[in-house]
């Protein structure tokens, strides 16, 4: 496989192609592609857009007119919903707690899963395939049935209402998917890679850190995104194992408390949704750049 050819040829092609009839034909040919993508994207953002517009509307208008009516005069926007959310006592503490829960609850399962996934895909040991399948099967365990046995275990060990307990619980819950996803990507790596490394005398740990992990960056990035997101947006696990005290409550718990038991104040949820969305979106954007083609290019000489 020649790696050099496309690299040299591509720029020439681009220069030659510009503004020739062929380029116009190409552009017209790809028009359905652009229409399809942009159409899908617009359809996808309408619901979020509705929420965004609504988050700037006063309660009195929520129930009486659609969100799109706010887009034409008279513009009747308000920051009250955001003001109310940002004035919530303990909002800073909740943000801090959310970070303190989400970061370890992402780092621990990702690390543990990476090692396990590597052994499942490239090591031989007794019962490997069956243990792996059991791991996939565990994805189906409804989390609700684990709460009571695990909570009584935590109380015995003094782990209830501690961050450590929540980290460990999220690790246990997140591992089946994490291992399943990573093993799939690790397995797709070319076998020659490992053979040539072994000939060079590299140890297993070196192969893992120097070859496998760098080549699996897109997979690791997507895993980190999802695990972080699930933990960040989790309400159920936090409520069960942490309880609702402000010292340990994450953002989800604090924001859920904005809505009264009778459902009053639910308009604040619109603003709260955007406040709590900011961090997951930043994580997504900063990891987005690892989704690039060509990490594997040149790693195997074929």
């Amino acid at each position, binding site marked *: 496989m020649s790696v050099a050819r496309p690299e040299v040829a591509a720029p020439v092609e681009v220069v030659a192609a510009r503004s020739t009839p062929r380029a116009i034909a190409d552009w017209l040919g790809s028009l359905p592609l652009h229409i399809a993508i942009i159409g899908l994207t617009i359809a*996808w953002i309408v619901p979020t857009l509705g929420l965004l517009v609504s988050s700037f509307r006063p309660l009195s208008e929520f129930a009486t007119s659609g969100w799109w009516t706010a887009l034409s005069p008279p513009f009747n926007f308000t920051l009250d919903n955001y003001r109310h959310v940002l004035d919530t006592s303990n909002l800073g503490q909740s943000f801090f707690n959310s970070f303190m829960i989400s970061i370890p609850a992402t780092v621990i399962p990702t690390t543990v899963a990476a090692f396990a996934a590597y052994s499942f895909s490239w090591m031989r040991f007794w019962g490997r395939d069956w243990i792996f399948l059991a791991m996939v099967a565990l994805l*189906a365990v409804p989390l609700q049935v684990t709460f009571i046995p695990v909570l009584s275990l935590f109380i015995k060990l003094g782990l209830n209402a501690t961050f450590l307990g929540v980290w460990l619980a999220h690790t246990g819950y997140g591992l089946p998917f994490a291992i399943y996803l990573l093993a*799939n990507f690790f*397995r797709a790596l070319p076998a020659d890679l490992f053979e040539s490394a072994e000939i060079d005398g590299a140890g297993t740990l070196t192969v893992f850190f120097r070859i496998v992990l760098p080549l699996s960056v897109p997979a690791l990035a997507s895993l980190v995104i999802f695990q972080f997101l699930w933990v960040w947006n989790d309400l159920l696990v936090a409520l069960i194992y942490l309880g609702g005290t402000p010292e340990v409550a994450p953002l989800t718990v604090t924001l859920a408390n904005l809505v009264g038991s009778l459902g009053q104040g639910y308009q604040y949820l619109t603003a*709260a*949704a955007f406040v709590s969305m900011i961090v997951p979106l930043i994580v997504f954007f900063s990891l987005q750049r690892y989704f690039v083609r060509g990490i594997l290019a040149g790693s195997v000489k074929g």
Partner: protein
Amino acid sequence: MDNLAQFLTVQLPTLIAVVIGVPAVLAGYIVLGELLIRRLPDSARPSVRPWLWVGPALFFVAVFLVYPAFGTAYRSLFNRPGDAFVALANYVTVLTDQTVWIAIRNNVLWLIFYTILALLFGLLLAVLSDRVRYETPVKSLIFMPMAISFTALAVIWRFMYSYQPPGAPQTGTLNAIVTGIFHADPVTWLQDERINNFALIGAAVWGISGFAMVILSASLKGIPGELLEAARVDGAGEVTIFRRILLPLLMPTITVVGTTLVIFALKAFDIVYVMTNGNYHTDVLANRMYKELYNAGNFANSSALAVILLIAVIPVLIFNLRQFRAVEARR
């Protein structure tokens, strides 16, 4: 001063535990494991290392998933107070309940439509956006619903599906389209039993397609560009490239995403719980299980339902095992 005291006693120790403690424990395990392996004779190393590497994962899932799952299976064989063994009586109770069969039917609907639609949109978006320059903004916008919590998702879709009687100005986006553009009567999306399940599935698909797209896209980026370039040079059309190169290479990842989606469909809970709570014939097994467990306090029935959910996954596992063996055989 109060803030400072609180920072020093509460937040600082947490911060230190997170920034230093957690990485230290993880690195310590790896280093100690490596030292242990070095001390073993050469011949023993390949059989010890795998267990050292999967060990922590096995420990975590054993405590948090396997132990509760077996506890649930065991509990499902006892009566409601838990003091008498009743064998499969709970399963008979559950499976002769008409409303449970409605939940099973709805789970089948979820299984088919949620899985296929999310996979289809994910694949379509991953493959199409890979070929345009504005890939990042497109992917970010599609991904955005993933970043929204379920409570917010429920609020969003309540705006989408909201219903006002015919003649009154519609506040729901979809009914505004139905009445304004198609001049039809507004639809009670969440109450009409012919469509409400699809309305819920639609909201769920909207939320999860970004998941399928991101993973498929990560896999797509692993396909060498030279391969596609070479095929184009050889005169292969884009459809042929998709069918003959991309699809086979993406197949293992499609299996992973598909399996995960099937299991999510079986476990579907949050959206049903927050939007209809299973009313108007929209109940699903996981919501039913939750109701038995936390509303009725019926451990016997809820355990039986959980075990039924677990058994339903077996066909998916068999499919995975086959895929798995096929990949193994190829290398």
